[in-house]
């Protein structure tokens, strides 16, 4: 009886200790990758932002312009009648921050390996932020894109004033342009490709 008891305890402890690591292995998502690679992430950012620009920003801008121009036979949808839905504004915002800018921040953080690409990502980020300021006014900038715990865990960033953001964007883009103008950086980039 005692032997059986001991055996039972030993076996269950064995199972329990192997539990932890084996179970953790099972919970690794096989459908995704644990890390990204800067060139492909940059491509994704471009693709996402292209769609945001074309299907959301420009479309809304164009619809409003069409309404003001008052062309004949123009069908009126909800937007021109100022029947705005949250989705009209949220999707553009989401594509800009969540998809494009977030991916670009990964490329920028990988600057040591891809300095030229990081600078290009900087410039594209500035372009996106500028568009955001033009459309929304005050936007989160200094505390944006820092949701991950290692980055500060800011899940509800503060809004900065539009002008303050513009000032920062100008200095940022100047720095990035200077990096790209550096011939050494471009040589390294060419060698990589």
């Amino acid at each position, binding site marked *: 009886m005692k032997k059986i008891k001991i055996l039972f305890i030993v076996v269950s402890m064995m199972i329990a200790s192997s539990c932890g690591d084996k179970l953790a292995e099972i*919970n690794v998502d096989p459908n995704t990758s644990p890390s990204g690679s800067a060139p492909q992430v940059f491509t994704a950012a471009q693709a996402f932002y292209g769609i945001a620009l074309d299907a959301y920003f420009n479309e809304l801008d164009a619809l409003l312009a069409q309404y003001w121009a008052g062309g004949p036979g123009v069908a009126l949808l909800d937007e021109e009648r100022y029947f705005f839905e949250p989705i009209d504004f949220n999707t553009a915002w989401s594509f800009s921050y969540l998809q494009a800018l977030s991916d670009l921040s990964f490329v920028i953080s990988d600057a040591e390996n891809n300095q030229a690409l990081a600078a290009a990502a900087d410039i594209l980020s500035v372009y996106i932020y500028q568009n955001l300021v033009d459309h929304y006014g005050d936007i*989160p900038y200094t505390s944006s894109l820092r949701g991950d715990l290692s980055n500060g865990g800011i899940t*509800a960033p503060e809004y900065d004033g539009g002008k303050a953001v513009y000032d920062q964007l100008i200095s940022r883009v100047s720095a990035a342009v200077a990096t790209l103008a550096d011939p050494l950086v471009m040589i390294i980039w060419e060698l990589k490709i």
Partner: protein
Amino acid sequence: MKRILLLSTVLVFALSGYIMAQKTVTGTVTAEEDGSPVPGVNVIVKGTSAGTVTDIDGNYQIGVPDQGGILVFSFIGLATEEVEIGAQSVINMTMTADIKQLNEIVVTATGDLRNANSVTYANQTVGSESLLSSPQKNTLEALRGKAAGVKLTTNSGSVGASTRIVLRGEASLTGNNNALIVIDGIPIDNSNSIGGENEGEGGYTDYGNAFNDLDPQSIESVTILKGPSATSLYGSRGASGVVMITTKSGSKGKMKVDLNTTFSIEDAYILLDRQEQFGQGILNPDGSKIFDSGENFSWGPRFDGITRPWTSPIDADGDGNLEYLSRPYEAVPNQLHDFFRTGWTSNNSLALSGGTDLFTYRVNYANTFQNGIMHNTDYERHNIGFNGTAKLSDKVSSSVGLSYASVAMNTATEGSRAFEGRNPYASAIQSPNTIDYRQVRDYTSPFHDFGGWYGTYTINPYFILNEMANTGKRDNWLGNASIDWKPIKGLTLATKFGINYTSLNTIESVPIYQYEDHYVWLDNLKLDGPRSRDGNAGAHNELLRSTTVIDWTTTASYTTEIGSSSSLTAIGGVNIYDLTRKQLYGETRGGLVIPGVYNLANSAQTAAVEQSHNDYRIIGFFGNASYSWKDRVYLEGSVRNDYSSTLPVDSQSFLYWSLGSSVIVSDFLNWTYNDPISKLKVRVSYGTTGKDAGLYLLTNTYNINPSLVNYEGIYEILSPFNGQTGISKDGLIGNNFLTPEVTTTFEAGTDITFWKGRGNFSYTYYNSIHTDQILEADLSRASGYSITAVNIGELTNKGHEISLNITPISTASGFDWDLGFVWSTNKSEVTRISAQTNELSIWSSGRGVTQVAAVGEPFGTWKGNVQRFDPNGNPIVDGNGARVYTTTPEYVGSVQPDFLGSITTSFKYKGFRLGALLDGRKGGKFFSLTKTAVEFNGTGGNTLIGDRQPFIVPNSVVEQSDGTFVENTTPIVASNYLDDGNYTNHLLDASFLKLREISLGYTFPREIVSRLNLQAASIDFFAKNVKFWLPSENIFDDPEAKGPGGSSDNTTGVASTQTPPARSYGVSLNLTF
């Protein structure tokens, strides 16, 4: 023939007599109720194969051994009797009815049978007799009205629709609230298969869930486990309650053959009320109407009965002249009903069972064929099963079960609007009331085909039903094997191994088609056009999904007597549960190349492929101890420690426990059968249950070649884009600090048996707090992420459950009237979400109405803009005469009902049985997208406001800039009044009262039955969904239609043009050989 039979019978008796017997015993078997002889009773000598059957007069004669020997008398429906033969040579026997036995035995969470008295939690076991008191197509329907606090919903009336069982209210804010289904101790994979060419707003296709694959005829009993001690033995997966199903196994005796055949016809039950005064066309704000034969709008001129053309003019016969069909300009009577056809269902099942002292077996085969009420929809299922038990030695016994279900169905897309999707019923609703479906059914006729079809904005729904495929096939294997070893008295070591393997294959295709430009008729036979119409480049997709569940439990249990009046049972064990799911999905892109070839190679652009693989494992150690004193006082405690793969390594392990007690008060008071109350049991329990997280929430990941944009399933742009691969950061912040959810429940109740066993009453009060709810909380996108899983929510559920069964009338002549009531109420409240937010979105209608979980409100609260009134209660309107609404949404009710209740009643007299089941719910609101559709297109019964002329909203006022109100003088027409951009008006009262079934059955008397060499025979006639009573404002939908509405399985209360329910009428025949 007769002589040979007689000769062989004599031979058999003689031989058996020669082998076994040394003396003969005779006797007569009579029934206790009336003393009449009982023919057909099995009389066997225990432990041997010697047996006989009583004759017409109840007499028998059997050879028995000289010494010892026990005679066993058994017959279906009568209590089995055993008697020692001793020195007697004449043994008479009275047999009594056996109905009470089943009530007293319950199945516990550890799968063993126990006396109901010892159970310390609310436990409802429904036996097969009650489940199948009237024939049922699937198990969910069989459970209706049988247990309290159980919310059963079927997605819709379509063939093979998914089902959902929620016990005692939703326990999880974003997790799965469906009860765990356990079959013979193995938890099965019951996930939904919802797909569809146009998932999202455009509709979805429901391929059902595995629970529907079970053959109701093979169920022995269903036990609903809700209390903490009940679910603490099932671990995390049982946190939402457990529905434990035990399938039939054989029993000792000669081979018994059960045959059942059922056939029923189904007729659509149309709940939508359509107006029958105005036809196709458009309503202008001044009240004038324009007729337009291509419109789906019915805002046109009033019906006048004058014959006019209604199909688009085409040259049908090539003679150079245009032809068209004409009909009187009036509503088609029963239009929507004739959209459907009469469906039918047939079900056959055959089971062989039997056994000896050493082994028992049951083999069954069943098939179900169904033709749905929608054209070209059907469902076919075959079930094969085997259950066997074997006594390998004195101490070792084993059991094996294997079942296979094969399901194949052709179904239709349902839900939401007609235009973007391929939903035939939604198309039917979007049609004007002048379209005769009996003619349009001929969809290949030139008048209803791509040229002559009347509509500019819709396509022929019969084309959708017949030419667009939505096929689902599922193979469902369930196997279990167990061994029990009793090495010493009181100790049992058991191990049970089970596998559930399901494979699902769905195929969907849309042909290449193009509706031609057409001309439409306006007023005075003028033609307008050409108008261009819908087309499709074709599409094809296929999904292969396989799921394997392995469940392995090993237990050791020890029972010992303590002193003369107490006993203690202790159980300890370990359980390993592993789930693996693999999925492969491919779809064509950009359309098909060759028409009619439905293969991924036939894709205009490269076919898209998606692959996914999910793994999950949970290991649990559990223990349970129960102590009983004089069979009057019971104490029970259980504890379980789970290790789950979905939690971070540091918090993978979580412990939960429960404690319960029950006291049979009536034993202390010495109340017996003759007292007014013969049994009074009081029970109380308290405990916790833990629940782990969803898959893959712990780390940040990157998506390779993600979907770049997916507009509601209508078009999608995928990476690689222009040949360039993209990798994107996933929007989930991995949370490595997750801890499990915890539910703490307190439960107390009582069970009373009164009136000499003619009455049974049960009451339970429960109070559950669900804390540390794991929510995928929405984050500000400006953080660069969209969601993260956190333990933040808290939810409570409190309620009462009552069930009462009485037999008010039971006369000596054999007339019985049984009545059953079941009633439950649950108060759900979200007590906390997070520090940042008080609200979580569950579903959004897209025009301001959302379903949320909000602090201080029940789970599933509706939120929308409400109508504004002035201080005197007058409705405020704007400059166009239209109603004005608040700009800040308010909480306007929830999906939760005030209470649920059922009444079952049955009258029995001499073999006849007449029964009915009434089921109802009060309170709660649902969102009707059907109402939205029919108010939009003017076919709804409520669109005749002001007789379609401009009218001033009664008592309406206009707000002035200084805040005062003046009387409104601006009229408005019905179409603009109803389509005012606000959807809060589409929240309707979800109450209902349904007469779910009426059945009349007859059990053939034993004399007739045994003359045909049968053991039992019965026939049942039944009608289902006989009548629904709905609140007067609900002239649109069945409030029970669940509809996914959104991707979360928790979205309930959205009716979005699902297939309506159907009335069915049928007959069922049961024979036992």
